[in-house]
Structure formats: structure tokens, C-alpha cells
């Protein structure tokens, strides 16, 4: 649906050339909720603006629906933009217009008949749950309500793609959850492909199916959310994952374990889907006569499926522990934890 092909964007600044986006290549498939995560200044906002050419890439190609956006004429670009909705961090609503007028304006721009506009705006406001606010002005709304208006406006022209630039970053956690649920509904009910830019890992965890991690203008890691959460490679990615998953041993536990001079058999076990609810540990414990001590861990949800990350220590015969680990490995991902490598 959206393909970034070696996209680079640089600016000529007073202190020389600043490259905001460096050789970025990845593809967002139709129906994806694709998240791009990175700290501020990582270049993700610039990247998302390269999709609808609010920023023109210095080199490389962005294709939406197999059309190279840079090859379009001004008129073709405007038509293409109508099929690419965009939602902003600070909503960017027209303060002088009512909620109704804000949602209606994209339709009026393409000279849609008044009756049609009325019906469409009514439907959209009911979809985002703001039917009763049609005649209010943006400054009478809460942040979450404003973003709902922003989403309704972005959906007015029935786009195929929705770009979300930090759509939840100005909202509190509660409101963020509600807006994310709405975005998921947009994705499911209308089959709209969603590209989300964020610095908040909970956003990725809660609704994305695929993710790219950006740092200094480059994509340093990408893949399915499950893969990235279970096997983060880069340090930044690990930090992001740790921010929502307790997947690192606390310093105090490491200190305690490494000071007693004994050999410890510590493993990281990843649970996903149905396996997360199975009593795996207690089973192998009984079968191999082991004591299992959970040192740290958490079970959370990834795309509405349980996803667990436990760090456990086995006490027992070393051979039996090996056998036990081999058995768990048949169904789950297990990795030995080296205390010295942690931190």
C-alpha cells in the first residue's frame, strides 16, 4: 500500500546539511496498522510527511498504491491526497468553524452536493461518537474530542490510508486508549491502512501489527510487533520494549544472584497466544522434579492476544533442567539469560 524506497530527506540549514531521514526502505501492506516509533528528532514526522508530499523527499521514492507520489502533477497530487487522510498531534482544526463545518470542509473542497455532505458528516460524527457536538466550536471540546473531530475530518473523503502523526501524544493515557480503539475500529470497519508515528510504546503494543524503529533518521529495526517485542536487537528497541514490558532483570536481583557464587540456571521464556494461559512451568517442574522460581516477568496483550515474558530460575539436576528446557522449546521461545550480559 505504501512503499518507502530508499527515501532520504535533507535540509540546507545554516550549519550545513541536516539529514532528517536517511535511506529508509519499508513497505506498509494493505490493512496494516503500521507503527513507526522513535524518540523526538528521529525523523519520523518528516518521514510520514513524505507520504503525502507535505515534505518532498530529497531522493528515493514513496509509492502509494503503486504510484510514485513524486511523479504526480500538482492536480494529481491533490486528488491523491484526498485518498490519504491525515491526523495531527495538535489536531489542526479550524477554530473559526464548528465541528460540523470542520468535518464537512474536505467534502466541500471537492464540491460535493450539500445533501451528500450533510449525510456523510452526520454518519462520521456518529462513528466517532460526537453527534451531539456538531454545533460546538473546537475550543469547547476536550483534547480527545478534538482528535475525534480530526479523525472524522480525515475520513470524510473515504481515504484508503490514514496517516497519524503523534495522534495521541497530546492526550492523557485514558483518552489515548479511547482514540487507539477508534483507530482500530477505522482499520477494521473500513479496511483503511493506518500508518502511525509515535514515541509511545503502548501505542505500538496496543494496536499495531507491524513496527519500524527509527533512530537518527534511519530505520534500525522492523518487523511484526510480536517479533520485535520478543527479540529486540538494537539497544533503542530494547529500551522501548522495556518501557512497556518488564523484560529485564532488575539490578537488585542481578546483584543478589551474582554475589552468592553459585551456578544459576536462568531462562527467559516467551509466551504467546494460547500458550500463555497453559501451566507449562508447573508441568515441567513436576515432570523433571524441578523447582521453578519466577524472578521477573509480565503477561501483557499484543494485538489482543496474551504475550508473556517470564524470567525464571530452575533449581534441580543440571541434566534434568536441560531436558526440561528442551521440552519447553518445542512450543515456546526459551533463551538462557547470562547475568553478565544483562545491563
Amino acid at each position, binding site marked *: 500500500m505504501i512503499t518507502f524506497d530508499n527515501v532520504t530527506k535533507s535540509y540546507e540549514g545554516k550549519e550545513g546539511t541536516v539529514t532528517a531521514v536517511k535511506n529508509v526502505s519499508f513497505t506498509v501492506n494493505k490493512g496494516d496498522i503500521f507503527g513507526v516509533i522513535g524518540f523526538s528528532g528521529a525523523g519520523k514526522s518528516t518521514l510520514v510527511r513524505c507520504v*503525502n508530499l507535505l515534505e518532498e523527499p530529497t531522493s528515493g521514492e514513496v509509492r502509494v498504491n503503486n504510484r510514485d507520489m513524486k511523479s504526480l502533477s500538482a492536480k494529481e497530487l491533490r486528488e491523491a491526497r484526498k485518498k490519504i487522510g*491525515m491526523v495531527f498531534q*495538535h489536531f*489542526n482544526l*479550524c477554530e473559526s468553524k464548528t465541528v460540523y463545518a470542520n468535518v464537512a470542509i474536505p467534502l466541500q473542497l471537492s464540491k460535493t452536493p450539500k445533501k451528500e455532505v450533510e449525510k456523510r458528516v452526520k454518519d462520521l460524527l456518529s462513528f466517532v461518537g460526537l453527534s451531539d457536538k456538531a454545533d460546538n*466550536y473546537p475550543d469547547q471540546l476536550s483534547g480527545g474530542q478534538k482528535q475525534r473531530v480530526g479523525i472524522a475530518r480525515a475520513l470524510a473523503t473515504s481515504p484508503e490510508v490514514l496517516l497519524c502523526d503523534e495522534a495521541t501524544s497530546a492526550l492523557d493515557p485514558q483518552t489515548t486508549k479511547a482514540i487507539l480503539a477508534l483507530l482500530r475500529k477505522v482499520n477494521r470497519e473500513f479496511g483503511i491502512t493506518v500508518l502511525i508515528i509515535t514515541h509511545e510504546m503502548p501505542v505500538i503494543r496496543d494496536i499495531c501489527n507491524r513496527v519500524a524503529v527509527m533512530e537518527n533518521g534511519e530505520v534500525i529495526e522492523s518487523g511484526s510487533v510480536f517479533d520485535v517485542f520478543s527479540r529486540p536487537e538494537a539497544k533503542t528497541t530494547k529500551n522501548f520494549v522495556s518501557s512497556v514490558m518488564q523484560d529485564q532483570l532488575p539490578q537488585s536481583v542481578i546483584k543478589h544472584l551474582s554475589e552468592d557464587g553459585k551456578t544459576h540456571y536462568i531462562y527467559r521464556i516467551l509466551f504467546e497466544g494460547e500458550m500463555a494461559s497453559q501451566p507449562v512451568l508447573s508441568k515441567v517442574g513436576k515432570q523433571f522434579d524441578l523447582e521453578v522460581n519466577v524472578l521477573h516477568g509480565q503477561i501483557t496483550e499484543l494485538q489482543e492476544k496474551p504475550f508473556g515474558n517470564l524470567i525464571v530460575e530452575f533449581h534441580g539436576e543440571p541434566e534434568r533442567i536441560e531436558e526440561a528446557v528442551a521440552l519447553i522449546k518445542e512450543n515456546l521461545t526459551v533463551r538462557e539469560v547470562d547475568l553478565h550480559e544483562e545491563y
Partner: protein
Amino acid sequence: MRSTDWSTFWVRVLEATLETLTMTAFPLFFASLIGIPLGVAVVVTRKGHLFENRAAFFVLNTIVNIVRSVPFIILLVALIPLTRLIVGTTIGTTAAMVPLVIFAAPFIARLVESSLLEVDPGVTEAAKSMGATPWQIIFRFLIPEALSSLVLNLTIATIGLVGASAMAGAIGSGGLGDLAIAYGYQRFHTDVMIVTVILLVIIVQAIQVSGNHLSQAIRRR
């Protein structure tokens, strides 16, 4: 202080008041006709804007600056040949309107510029993202968003015109300024001076209050 025969002189005051209002309203209209598009042009031709054009921006910006830097009293005299060319006379209310327009237009352009620049660039970005043409962005986003502030700024321009029209009294334009100079200053009729000042205060107050109300009404339509 000389005494004034108010039983007949009030007619003169009324005439002068109407002349002042005329010298405010007509130049305001024509100056807006020039100044508003000029202000919009100065905004949209600047770097990174809808119709970025360095040459056009430089020329327009320079013209505005040059005219703005000439004091009105000088403009009044310097424009006499132009005034004769346009209205065929160089004295009276009609003649004063030419320099008033030339004076107010670049002033209005600057005020319009500042109003438009106050509009959140995010709104322009949102407009672009929904496929609006540059003209649609100007007329459906920028101007409506700036309207309330535009009205306040045009109020400032209107009051500026009241002041300038009084100054035009120096070349015999008619109006309250002329009256104050001719009677209050040159003939020592202090009471005339006081009356004209009171009338000017009332006019300026009325303009400011209406401008504030209109601006508020637009903000909360």
C-alpha cells in the same frame, strides 16, 4: 480667546464631522481593496509559503516599506501631482482622499500580514493534506481563521485614517482637523478646538467599540 457664534457655527461643525467620516470611509474602502490583497500577497509569496516567489516578495515588501516610511504630512504634499491626475483637484475633501488611500493601503497590508501570520501553520498543513488548492487554502482556511483578528486590525487602520484625515486639514481638506486648525489654531477659537477634540474622541471610541464587537461576534459565530 475669540467668541464663536454657535447658533450658526454648529452647521459648520456638522459638515466637518461628515467630511471626516467621508475621508475615513472612502479611503478605508479603497485602501482595503489594495491593502488586503497586498497583505495576502506578502504572506503567500514568502519562503516556504503557498506561492513562494522571492522576487515578488522582495518587490511587494519593499514597496510597502517605502510608502510606510514617508510621514503622512509629507505624503500629502508629495502626492499633489498624482492627486491632480486622479481627481483633477488638489484641495478639498476629494483631493485628500488620494493620499489617504496611498497612506492606508500599505498600512493595511502590514496589518493583514500580521493577522494571517498568526494563523497556526498546522491549519495550512491540514488543508494541504486534504488536497486543497492554494486558492482554497487562502479563502477557506487562512482568511476565515484570521477574520476575527483582521477585523480588529482593520479597526486600527480605520482609527489611523481618522487621525490622518485630521492632518489633511493642513492642506485645506475640510473635516474636523481642518476646522480645528482654521478656527482653533489660526483664529484662537479655543471652544472650537475643544468641540472638535471631543467629537474626534467620540468617533474613535465608536469605531473601536464596533470593531471589538464585530471581532467578538466573528470569533463566536
